[in-house]
């Protein structure tokens, strides 16, 4: 029946209105941008919680045990919200992009099936971890948390593999519009998979760590400088700071990958209009038809970054037909924003390192001054902005293709009328869910306040679910 559906796909592009196409893009973009933040917390927060719980068991510190319980409580709410917003995405793949799924669903099915298994494991052990907290001996309880972290990371890997395939479609042949010779493993493990998945998983740990640390940085700024709040800040901030330098190296790898495999995306990221050597690195600027103006140029910068030599040739947008250019200014700015935040977080990590070193020499507590804590409080939201910008670079940089070089977004969309109404409905539901999530998380911290110096009995009285 594949043959019968292909004329249908060809027809889709003619049947769909421009408004409905924009509505579908907006709905997918919005629900993904929303889910991606919660999903990062879903990958990173269990690791932080286990770290605090392990520390608490090892040292008997009630502060750390209380932190673990509190983070677990937030984890329960966020996991539920992440599970449902993720389910919606799997629906939207078919509701909004049946042209893509009808033709290529079987090619990218494998990573999604594997992701389903990983997510299943995550949900099962999350149920056990949260609800059996007071039923299992502490060490065995700690063990039930480990599958959550492994499965969470694995599901991030699989789902990003599927996205990577859209950037580097492999593992199939198109013959007369029919998909044949499918190799699902080659499709899943395409050249984009490794740089993209590693970059995303590290981003997830950074977002979860810096966001959690931000909350406690605010508490420390408000003068709650007890062990509990210090630990709540230091554990996640240290993890985030430790991951950041690796993330910058992986980011460089991911960008150089583009030079070889997706030169049009790299040209848009860097605002390169003309192919050539000795290409400067342009920071900021406004894109016109013929070039990027008013940006700060570092001579030979891009050629050096891509090939370690000023003679390296970088392909420009002149090699791409005008109708296939991504939105250069937007992609370029999003990239610059992501990179600047990355270096800001790196600087914060170095500051932390210096603080540790000073404490070793002078003794006492970690010397955090107001400026440091204020910047640390900003680091969480900044990490989220970096995450969203990076995602914009990947997705907008691929436009107008849904499958790079193979299928345009227009050919993939659902030709049914009324997608605009669906967009409004989804916006309303997500707005309500956002308000409720923030409200519930805030109330949760006030409803059961933590004592200044927690004792063992305070710990056992703090509800996990």
């Amino acid at each position: 029946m594949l043959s019968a559906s292909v004329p249908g796909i060809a027809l889709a592009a003619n049947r769909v209105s421009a408004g409905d196409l924009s509505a579908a893009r907006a709905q997918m973009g919005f629900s993904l941008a929303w889910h991606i933040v919660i999903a990062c917390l879903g990958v990173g927060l269990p690791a932080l919680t286990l770290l605090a719980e392990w520390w608490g068991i090892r040292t008997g510190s009630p502060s750390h045990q209380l932190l673990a319980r509190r983070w677990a409580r937030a984890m329960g709410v966020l996991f539920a919200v992440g599970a449902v917003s993720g389910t919606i995405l799997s629906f939207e793949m078919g509701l909004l992009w049946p042209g893509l799924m009808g033709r290529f669903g079987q090619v990218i099915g494998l990573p999604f099936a594997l992701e389903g298994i990983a997510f299943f494991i995550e949900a099962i052990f999350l149920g056990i971890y949260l609800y059996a907290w007071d039923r299992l001996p502490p060490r065995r309880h700690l063990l039930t948390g480990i599958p959550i972290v492994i499965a969470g990371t694995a599901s991030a890997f699989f789902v990003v593999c599927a996205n990577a395939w859209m950037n580097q479609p492999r593992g199939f042949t198109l013959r007369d519009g029919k998909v044949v010779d499918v190799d699902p493993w080659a499709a899943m493990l395409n050249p984009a998979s490794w740089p993209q998945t590693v970059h995303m998983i590290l981003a997830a740990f950074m977002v979860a760590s810096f966001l959690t640390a931000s909350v406690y940085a605010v508490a420390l700024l408000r003068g709650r400088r007890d062990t509990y709040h210090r630990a709540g800040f230091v554990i996640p901030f240290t993890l985030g700071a430790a991951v950041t330098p690796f993330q910058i190296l992986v980011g460089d790898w991911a960008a150089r990958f583009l030079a070889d495999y997706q030169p049009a995306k790299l040209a848009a990221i860097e605002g390169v209009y003309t192919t050539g050597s000795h290409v400067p690195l342009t920071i900021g600027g406004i894109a016109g038809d013929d070039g990027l103006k008013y940006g700060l140029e570092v001579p030979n910068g891009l050629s050096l970054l891509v090939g370690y030599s000023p003679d390296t040739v970088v392909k420009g947008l002149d090699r791409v037909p005008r109708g296939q250019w991504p939105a250069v200014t937007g992609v370029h700015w999003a990239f610059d924003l992501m990179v600047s935040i990355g270096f800001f977080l790196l600087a914060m990590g170095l500051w932390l390192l210096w603080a540790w070193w000073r404490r070793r020499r002078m003794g006492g507590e970690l010397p955090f001054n107001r400026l440091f804590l204020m910047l640390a409080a900003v680091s969480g939201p900044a990490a989220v902005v970096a995450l969203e910008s990076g995602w914009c670079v990947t997705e907008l940089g691929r436009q107008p293709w849904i499958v790079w070089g193979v299928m345009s977004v227009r050919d993939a969309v659902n030709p049914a009328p009324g997608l605009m109404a669906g967009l409004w409905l989804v916006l309303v539901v997500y707005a309500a869910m956002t308000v409720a999530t923030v409200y519930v998380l805030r109330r949760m911290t006030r409803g059961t306040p933590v004592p200044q110096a927690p004792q063992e009995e305070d710990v056992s009285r703090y509800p996990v679910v």
Partner: protein
Amino acid sequence: MLANTALAVMWVGLTCYALFGGADFGAGVWDLLSGGAERGRARRGLIEHSIGPVWEANHVWLIFVVVTLWSAFSTVFAAVMSTLYIPLTLAALGIIARGAAFAFRKASTELWQQRLFGACFALSSLVTPFFLGAVAGGVASGRVPPGLAEGDVVTSWLNPTSALGGVLAVLTCAHLAAVYLCADADREGRPELARGFARNAVLSGLAAGAVACAGVAVLHADAPELFHGLTHRALPLVILSAVAGLAVLGLLAKHRFVVARAAAALAVAAILWAWGAAQYPAMLVGGTTVSEAAATPAVLSAILVSLGFGAVVLIPSLWLLYTTFQRATPEQPHR
């Protein structure tokens, strides 16, 4: 052969979603019907206690079905999703509202919040299975042609068979939940709650039976191919479902709650398999067959092998989950 195996695996997933996820929806329906905040407190407490640890795992069966459908039968997935996008969008929004509100209610401390989130959870528990049942009715009555959005986006789900599917889905979920909750209440030492849920189970079971009987006439008029399948090839399964359904009523009267659970699950599973058997080998009635829709053998075997390895990890994990919480709550030493 591979295509049939993939279809069977997907159908097992669908059965599990109906038996586990469906019961969670049903629990939400009983939450809705439990009365005011004070009067319904005990029932709501039991419901929350029963589904809290397991609902997220139960929900994953739906993702499993969706993903298997799109990987193994991409063209059918595209046709169903694009034509039936209205009820599917509404079901998706119901899934969001339900899951989020359940978690929010648990995390709330004030009565008005618990009421607001509780109402949201309970109402979406009612409408979501209705829309999913309507989707099933649209597919089973042959209203989804192959291709992208080739069917009517309105009458594909606003029609007699879809209405029957929706109502039957809600009643079945409610019945399953009531039967399951009897056993939970009994184990927790709450005989008065168990009696109440037993009454609910009998009523919802009778209602489901009555609707199913009336449905025979609906299907005869509106979905002749499905009717023919159900009265011929799938007849043994239909009879099995009816017998199991009657047995549930008897077992409930005798307070044999755990066996009643198994019988109720059998009744629901049999009717799902009867639908599958009645429609086979058509995936889109009047259009695409299983072998026409199936992905290439390389894809099918990769997915089946991965699911096989997955099952080796999943089955013991699920076992651990259910056995951990199907024991009576131990005395909590700290409280």
